[in-house]
């Protein structure tokens, strides 16, 4: 297979299939991941081809899923765990934070925990409570974990390959409202390193940093700004832990303006960390303070209000204007 257009959900599905074909130790675990193929059908068809032993429908218990995945990893397996929705990960948070993240260090490196935890995240799908959250900062804050999120099908395919091959636990946030967006996947390509950011669009006046579902919004914002004669560079972060500050720094030292965009609340979020680091690294290059566009310090609102809550084109462009007006 070479290059073809496919939705993000399909790219992840193909990537899981490839990983399972390549390595008999790769297992899929989660609620409804078997015959149903997951509530988003990301594991569609895998149960049929790999059977009960490798595509495991688990009891409805997130801590149990992650806790047993840790045990399977200790036995030499490479579990890829699905948490059905962002807001349902918290029963497993203890296992992830106190066990999965720390076990390699506690053993002074003598054991490895190659566990991938897939979490469909973010809003914009008109869902009920607990189905639209962006908890990535809660994981990025934890030493021992790595946190990534693809924004397009090619990254979804390759980043999943790389996450499964990694000997570290990785939280893999999937932009659920972009699951059905199609883009090219070249399965013969040589992928960029997993934790390297990507310049999604080049520009010279201001840098927009985003990841996951917000990359599309930022690319649209850049296109709209172009019409007004403003040249925006868009950096697709791809990894929230570790963060590729070098790529952001290079971009900011060119454009001298930085706006970070994410769905998650801005307070103590990924944008706050980027703002602090870039201020330290590039203080004399900046012509404006680093601005953030994101969610508010409120519970995620009911679906009828989410369009106003989520950063959209206008809020991003408003921040761009404020930054350039400094």
């Amino acid at each position: 297979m070479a290059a073809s257009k496919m939705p993000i959900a399909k790219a992840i599905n193909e990537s899981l299939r490839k990983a399972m074909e390549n390595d008999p130790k790769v297992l899929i675990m989660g609620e409804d991941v078997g015959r149903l193929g997951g509530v988003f059908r990301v594991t569609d068809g895998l149960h049929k081809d790999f059977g009960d032993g490798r595509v495991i429908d688990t009891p409805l218990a997130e801590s149990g899923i992650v806790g047993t995945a840790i045990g399977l990893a200790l036995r030499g397996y490479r579990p890829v765990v699905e948490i059905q929705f962002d807001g349902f990960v918290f029963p497993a948070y203890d296992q992830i934070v106190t066990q999965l993240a720390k076990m390699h260090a506690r053993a002074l490196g003598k054991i490895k925990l190659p566990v991938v935890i897939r979490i469909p995240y973010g809003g914009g799908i008109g869902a009920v409570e607990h189905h639209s959250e962006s908890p990535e900062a809660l994981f990025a804050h934890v030493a021992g974990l790595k946190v990534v999120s693809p924004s397009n099908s090619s990254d979804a395919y390759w980043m999943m390959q790389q996450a499964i091959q990694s000997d570290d636990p990785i939280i893999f946030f999937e932009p659920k409202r972009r699951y059905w967006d199609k883009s090219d996947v070249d399965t013969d390509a040589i992928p960029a390193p997993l934790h390297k950011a990507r310049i999604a669009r080049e520009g010279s006046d201001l840098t927009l940093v985003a990841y996951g579902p917000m990359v599309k919004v930022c690319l649209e914002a850049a296109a709209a700004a172009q019409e007004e004669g403003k040249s925006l560079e868009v950096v697709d972060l791809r990894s929230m832990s570790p963060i590729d500050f070098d790529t952001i720094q290079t971009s900011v030292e060119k454009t001298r303006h930085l706006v970070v965009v994410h769905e998650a609340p801005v307070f103590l979020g990924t944008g706050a960390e980027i703002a602090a680091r870039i201020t330290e690294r590039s203080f004399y290059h900046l012509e404006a303070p680093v601005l953030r566009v994101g969610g508010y310090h409120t519970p995620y609102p009911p679906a009828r209000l989410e369009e106003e809550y989520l950063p959209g084109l206008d809020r991003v462009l408003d921040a761009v204007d404020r930054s350039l007006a400094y």
Partner: protein
Amino acid sequence: MTVESTAARKPRRSSSKRASSAAAKPPQSSEPQLVQLLTPEGERVRHPDYDVELTHDELRGLYRDMVLTRRFDAEATSLQRQGELGLWASLLGQEAAQIGSGRATREDDYVFPTYREHGVAWCRGVDPANLLGMFRGVNHGGWDPNTNNFHLYTIVIGSQTLHATGYAMGVAKDGADSAVVAYFGDGASSQGDVMEAFNFAAVYNAPVVFFCQNNQWAISEPTEKQMRVPLYRRAEGFGFPGVRVDGNDVLACLAVTKDALERARRGEGPTLVEAFTYRMGAHTTSDDPSKYRNDDERVAWEAKDPILRLRRYLEAEGAADQAYFDELEAESEAMGKRVREAVRAMPDPDVMAIFEHTHADGHALVDEERAEFAAYQASFAEEAK
């Protein structure tokens, strides 16, 4: 022949009088049968379902394991009092439960301990000095779990039962006939993770033995505050057998655990073993049991001491003479000395160890912070010049 002392529980009952009458009802009033093969008086008794036939050599071996484990434990407590360890969690009183179950395991079995399984660690061949590293504060464990198939001590209560279950699911996938033992306590039985582990193990028919040492106390909370039914009966609701064994009877613990492990090997799934025992000491060296429990209770359990009863049996059987006990005493003292010296000689880790092993494949931020910290440290050396 299956005797369970009710006298021992009486002080606890009276201590919870202030609770409402319904709540104060003792949860274990159904007087479950306790598997016992050796009475506190050292009399060998028979049980219809469980038995072990041991040679004198093997009996002496179990005795030696318990004596050395107790000596090691006492040495560690002393080392904490001397400031050599930051903390110690004593296993005093639980030697039979740990040695009986530990000696039931095979080399290829895998054990997931709490932080109190010093006797099981001994059975698995873990260097006692290794256990002391984390209590001294030089590491968080640090031994290679795969050397002795003995996982790191787990401090968050009950978490390891899920790891054991997952590991056992892997054993079954591999088609191996090994089994896994998950250790936990009466307090842990209230944790959701333990319930999830029971359920996952049942659903996947995982070859795991859940070995609960019910030592009657979760720090200051007695079992009445944790449960309303005898602990071993939880298993029934999950669809696998549960058995309560005299946790101060090393023969019964050995027989029951062996039986459960064999069941697991045969592909018959998990078993819950509740070893009914008593925490003779404090929860840890930071604890003060006089604040919450009556000493009469401890005194009553002293009469059921696991080591004393086996000694009585060895003597009655003519399996060990005074020369043997004297020799073992000397070996114990030598071990105490060895442990003491090992701990005192244990160096503090290099300060850069803070940044080691955070990830298997590295992490850019940790690399950056390591370099910053190294430069900061080096600045003192520069100043000193």
